[in-house]
């Protein structure tokens, strides 16, 4: 056994190290950023043209958020299914999933949004009215059609993220689960996926931020979300600088805030190995 003094010394040194790194990790940059943000916000509200632009363009926030959230939910759920398909041993499922991912990833997101809204959704509507003639999907407005298109596009990327997460879990985990008598599905649900999902929270969170930004593509459908409102404002005031600065401010506010939320969630769910 080592003498007690030498076992105490490292402990003190360690705690000093810990407090130092916490100091370094304190987000000074975010404090600075918050101050800048407050200054910008204040300025916007006090300069007439900016104030105007702010009020006009802010109407688009609601739709932007709705589109982003809906698209994300579609992307993640479909992505999970596709991801499982990509690791499946069933040759039909594997190839179908593979085809979807490869094709969708090869197309520009704008094309997919347009395709989703003007081809896929009407096709599904036709299909559904054949089976359920009473159901009316005509109420699905353009913003949701755009969101569906966006969700279908991002699903391909989430599929790859899920696949990577699942494959990163060591074989021994699946072997242990199967050896206890669990079926493949049970092993996936109780053992593999819970671990995989915690591992891929960073890229999943990043894609939420990405989708928020790509919601601007839905402006191509003349939906009155943020980007469209910015364009309209420029149209009616001829003030490009003010319009686009304001909309940039909105987007940045949302993405930076989301970034912080994602980091927070990541930290809370980390598993010690």
């Amino acid at each position, binding site marked *: 056994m080592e003498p007690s003094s030498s076992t105490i010394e490292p402990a003190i040194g360690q705690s000093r190290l810990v407090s130092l790194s916490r100091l370094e990790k304190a987000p000074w940059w975010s404090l600075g950023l918050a101050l800048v943000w407050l200054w910008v916000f204040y300025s916007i509200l006090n300069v007439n043209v900016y104030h105007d632009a702010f009020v006009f363009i802010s109407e688009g926030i609601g739709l932007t958020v709705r589109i982003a959230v809906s698209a994300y939910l579609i992307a993640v759920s479909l992505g999970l299914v596709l991801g499982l398909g990509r690791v499946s041993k069933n040759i039909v499922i594997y190839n179908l999933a593979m085809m979807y991912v490869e094709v969708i990833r090869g197309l520009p997101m704008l094309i997919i949004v347009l395709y989703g809204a003007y081809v896929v959704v009407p096709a599904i509507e036709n299909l559904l009215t054949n089976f359920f003639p009473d159901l009316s999907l005509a109420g699905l407005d353009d913003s949701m059609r755009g969101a569906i298109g966006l969700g279908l596009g991002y699903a391909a990327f989430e599929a790859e993220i899920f696949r990577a997460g699942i494959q990163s879990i060591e074989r021994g985990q699946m*072997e242990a*689960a*199967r*050896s*206890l*008598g*669990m079926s493949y599905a049970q092993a996936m649900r109780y053992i593999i996926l819970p*671990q995989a999902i915690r591992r891929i929270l960073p890229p999943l969170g990043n894609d939420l931020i990405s989708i928020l930004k790509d919601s601007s593509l839905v402006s191509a459908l003349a939906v009155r979300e943020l980007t469209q409102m910015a364009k309209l404002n420029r149209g009616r005031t001829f003030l490009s600088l003010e319009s686009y600065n304001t909309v940039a401010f909105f987007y940045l506010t949302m993405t930076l805030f989301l970034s912080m939320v994602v980091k927070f969630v990541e930290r809370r769910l980390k598993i010690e190995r």
Partner: protein
Amino acid sequence: MSVTGPIIQIENVHKRFGKVRALCGVGLSVQRGEVLVVIGPSGSGKSTMLRCINGLEFVDSGRVIVDGIPVTHATANINAVRVEVGIVFQQFNLFPHLTVLQNLTVAQRIVRKRTPVESERVARELLAKVGIPEKADAPPAQLSGGQQQRVAIARALAMNPKIMLFDEPTSALDPEMIKEVLDTMLLLVKEGMTMVVVSHEMGFARAAATRIIFMDEGTLIEDTTPDILFSNPREERTKAFLSKILH
């Protein structure tokens, strides 16, 4: 299910991994209550043979029959077979996202369909048996290697299997933790559990094995009792191997 006859029957099995021949015509029969220790150099096929018993690997030809049920690709309910065969891995393979207690109860609940109360009772009993009841609510990462392996043993036992397989259970442990795991295994031997153990721990083999098997290059070379193997093995290759590892 057969009440008489061997509980594990391996007949003339062959298995390749690509070009590598892992098992070449291995045959083996294990009766209930026997404790079989399998020794041999690495690459001899010991682990492969073990993993064929609970269907983690499937043989290319030959038969593997566990408790009367053949273990093949086509086995209708392979999960039912696996429930009866517990296995302990070299790398423990505990579930890191669950507590120690949950590691023991998860399979009980979703496979054996036991109630939460019953599974927890069984789990706590087993944790006490392997000597670490106080660690029930800890995540596995907080336990030492020896403790983790004992949890792994308890986890396998929680399913009340008929057979326990051990794939080099102490090879990944620091020397001072090997004894606690071997002692736990000795407890099982005393209770009459049918065990097949792949291990390099000769002390354990001498003390606990009813039979020792020596494998080399995918073939079963010798199959005798510990007394005979350690004092006067029949085969040359066995003698050569033993002279290298007994020091």
